[in-house]
């Protein structure tokens, strides 16, 4: 029997958790205006348009605001916008800014600023690029009105401008938004509910956000990314630390909130006094095993189909997540429980059929390379299960162990396996990134121009276009379902199911917002 570092820690911490700890240390209680947080990652990049990294996106939500934002039902609602006027032919959108909006430097937010911000975002983001492709003109009309004129009606204008996850179209001052899209911004002036304290930023350790006192929140109650963003603490401090250290700090009350409790520490924290564990993300995370469509043997659709039939979602989730409270079997490519959820086309495990398909495919024992990030607590076990399930139908699997950074580099290779190529890697997307056919970059099928794996399928592209141009919610749903069926039939990727990463917090913390993305407005540290 071997004991891992985590096992040992879980054991010692479990014992600690059962000891009678006093409720809330004096240190934490004397600092009610400060919310101390351990975010899910180390904030290194301050430009949420330059990178799609989720931590930079969350930083963006702290300091920037958006024109529209998704509510609890994932519907776009006005945020910086006071009123929206759409012409009868759906070609002209006039968005009027709310009164009183100002940048952190005190100057007023203008339509010019917003136009420049949308243009920069439109050069980087996938949905933004699609929107700009159908845009005839984007201009300011006076200081308050943003006018978007389209070449043809486009069904997801507000879903695009209000998208909840990376890259989020955050509004920045014009002077900042004019930074070339491929260059990182340096000025962190925003108009959001918090201001970034750049002078005291210590990457890898501490990021501080101060309340922006002149922020004018909407009057509606907070609802996911939409509604009133009320900063209830003067300061939010993000500390970067190791998972076990975060667990100890939360139990001792040195921090108030831990954004992502790792699966192996959930049970320990559940037993700790004055600590709560809760899933705040209704759309969870979607696990994927991605195929390389260019390299043998996974360039063969029948081999991909055979692999899909070899895989059993339940096994992936049991192994990687363990506790059924934090995973959900989901046959849909869109998060279960959201608008476009469907079981259509899902491939259930059938080993006999998988073996038959593999035989028919002409597979003759070529090596199938899986990129295995051994430093990732969820993707690593996903890879191990994947390898076992594929081996069971007779495929010659080679698991190549490496760190996550190397996976990110290796997956860009289009070379054959003997020259550093690959066949499969596992990944995950937050549910907010896969709520519809356009938000999910990985749904794309544009071949070598697209996302890693480079699936190429004209039909799938047409279905995405049909969704974008849908005239009614029913048509949109139909297009979304058709796309799902097409992706499964074409062996686009293996759906590994849905899992949730709970937050951990001291019971003195109130006001958390349920959302696919972590927000810190509305939160307070009670007495």
């Amino acid at each position, binding site marked *: 029997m071997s004991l891992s570092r985590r096992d040992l820690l879980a054991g010692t*911490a479990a014992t600690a958790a059962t000891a009678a700890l006093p409720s809330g240390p004096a240190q934490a209680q004397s600092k009610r205006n400060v919310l101390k947080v351990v975010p899910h990652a180390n904030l290194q990049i301050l430009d949420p348009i330059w990178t799609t990294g989720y931590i*930079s996106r969350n930083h963006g939500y702290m300091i920037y605001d958006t024109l529209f934002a998704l509510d609890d039902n994932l519907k776009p609602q006005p945020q910086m916008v006071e009123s929206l006027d759409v012409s009868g032919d759906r070609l002209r959108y006039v968005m009027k800014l709310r009164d009183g909006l100002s940048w952190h430097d005190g100057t007023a937010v203008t339509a010019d600023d917003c136009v420049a911000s949308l243009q920069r975002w439109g050069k980087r983001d996938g949905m933004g690029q699609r929107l700009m492709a159908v845009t005839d003109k984007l201009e300011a009309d006076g200081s308050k009105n943003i006018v978007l004129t389209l070449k043809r009606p486009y069904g997801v204008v507000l879903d695009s401008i209000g998208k909840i996850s990376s890259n989020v179209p955050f509004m920045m001052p014009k002077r900042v938004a004019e930074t070339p899209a491929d260059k*990182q911004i340096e000025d962190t002036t925003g108009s959001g509910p918090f201001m970034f304290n750049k002078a005291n930023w210590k990457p890898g350790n501490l990021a501080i956000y101060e309340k922006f006192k002149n922020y004018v929140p909407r009057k509606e109650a907070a609802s996911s990314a939409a509604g009133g963003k009320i900063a209830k603490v003067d300061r939010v401090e993000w500390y970067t630390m190791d998972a076990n250290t975060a667990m100890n700090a939360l139990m*001792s009350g040195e921090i108030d909130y831990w954004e992502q409790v790792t699966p192996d520490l959930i049970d320990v924290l559940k037993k700790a006094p004055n600590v709560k564990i809760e899933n705040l993300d209704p759309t969870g995370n979607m696990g994927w095993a991605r195929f390389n469509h260019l390299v043998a043997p996974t360039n063969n659709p029948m081999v991909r189909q055979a692999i899909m039939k070899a895989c059993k979602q339940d096994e992936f989730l049991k192994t990687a997540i363990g506790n059924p409270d934090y995973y959900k079997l989901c046959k849909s490519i869109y998060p279960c429980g959201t608008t476009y959820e469907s079981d259509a086309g899902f491939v259930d495990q059938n080993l006999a059929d998988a073996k038959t398909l593999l035989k028919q495919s002409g597979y003759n024992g070529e090596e199938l390379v899986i990129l295995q990030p051994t430093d990732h607590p969820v993707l690593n076990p996903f890879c191990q299960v994947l390898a076992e399930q594929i081996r069971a139908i007779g495929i010659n699997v080679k698991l190549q162990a490496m760190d996550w950074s190397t996976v*990110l580099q290796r997956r860009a290779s289009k070379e054959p396996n003997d020259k550093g190529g690959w066949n499969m890697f596992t990944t995950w997307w937050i549910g907010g990134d896969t709520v519809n056919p356009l938000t999910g970059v990985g749904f794309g099928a544009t071949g070598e121009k697209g996302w890693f794996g480079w699936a190429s399928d004209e039909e799938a592209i047409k279905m995405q276009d049909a969704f974008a141009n849908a005239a009614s919610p029913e048509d949109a749903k139909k297009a979304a379902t058709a796309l799902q069926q097409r992706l499964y039939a074409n062996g686009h990727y293996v759906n590994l199911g849905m899992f949730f990463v709970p937050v951990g917090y001291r019971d003195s913390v109130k006001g958390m917002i349920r959302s696919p993305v972590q927000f810190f407005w509305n939160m307070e540290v009670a007495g």
Partner: protein
Amino acid sequence: MVSFIVRRVLSTLPVMIIVAIVVFAMLRLTPGDPAVVIAGDQATAEQIARIRSNLGLDLPIHVQFVTWIGQLLQGDLGISIFTNMPVSTLIAQRLEPTLMLSLTTICFSVLVAVPLGVWAAWRSGTWTDRVIMVFSVLGFSFPVFVLGYLLIYEFGLTLKWLPTQGYKSPFSDPVGFVRSIIMPTITLSMIYIALVTRITRASVLEVLSEDYIRTARAKGQIERKVLFRHALKNAAVPIATIIGIGIALLIGGAVVTETVFNIPGLGRLVVDAILRRDYPIIQGLILVFSFTYIIINMLIDIAYTFFDPRIRY
């Protein structure tokens, strides 16, 4: 002596140049690409290529090297690819916690280990010696993180005497500093206490068999003075060597302790940089570590002349 110091300082230059070339080459040969980490999971190959180009990572390696060396000659360690901050600023932010942790660790280790080693030598072959040596072996073999977490469990979570993590500067919060540095210091000291104790014991034991010690005892010198004035001073050269090496190793090698106790030091900075392939930070830090190592070695050499006047350079 002055000419020795000048010669040693000058001799660091070729070493630093070799280190610079090796580090640069090794980093470029290591798999991983900062551009893909920056771009994030959703980025396409096209977007990554644009970022790589923007950062100059698509330039030929020799061009990148010449650019970097050019910056170094102007005293510029470069800019972090991720944070856009000067590497020198990032190092400066992390220097104090690491130096303080190293200082407290070395002081604590020496204060505990030297008397223990002398005592073990004096009581050589007795139960006292054996107990000290058993603890010394334990100090070597007990993983740092296990000891760290045990201390956290006892003093942080159960007794609530000390914070479980974090670092306070002694210049802004002296009490907070003492509270935050106790457990990391004890944790990190264990291996050095074990090491210095063993070296001290062996050195003192060797000296204790010398004629001049016998002479000192025959003259009626009290045992404390025999041990600390005659024996320890003459056994000091290997002890000073091991302490010096300890300091050099601590500067960059405290990463586990820094991680367990969330101390924002250089060790964590270099590990984070390696995981993200932030080349300028890794290159800058390794140069700083190498330079520190060379300087400390030089200081140890100088210290020898004080402990043993027969040594001349």
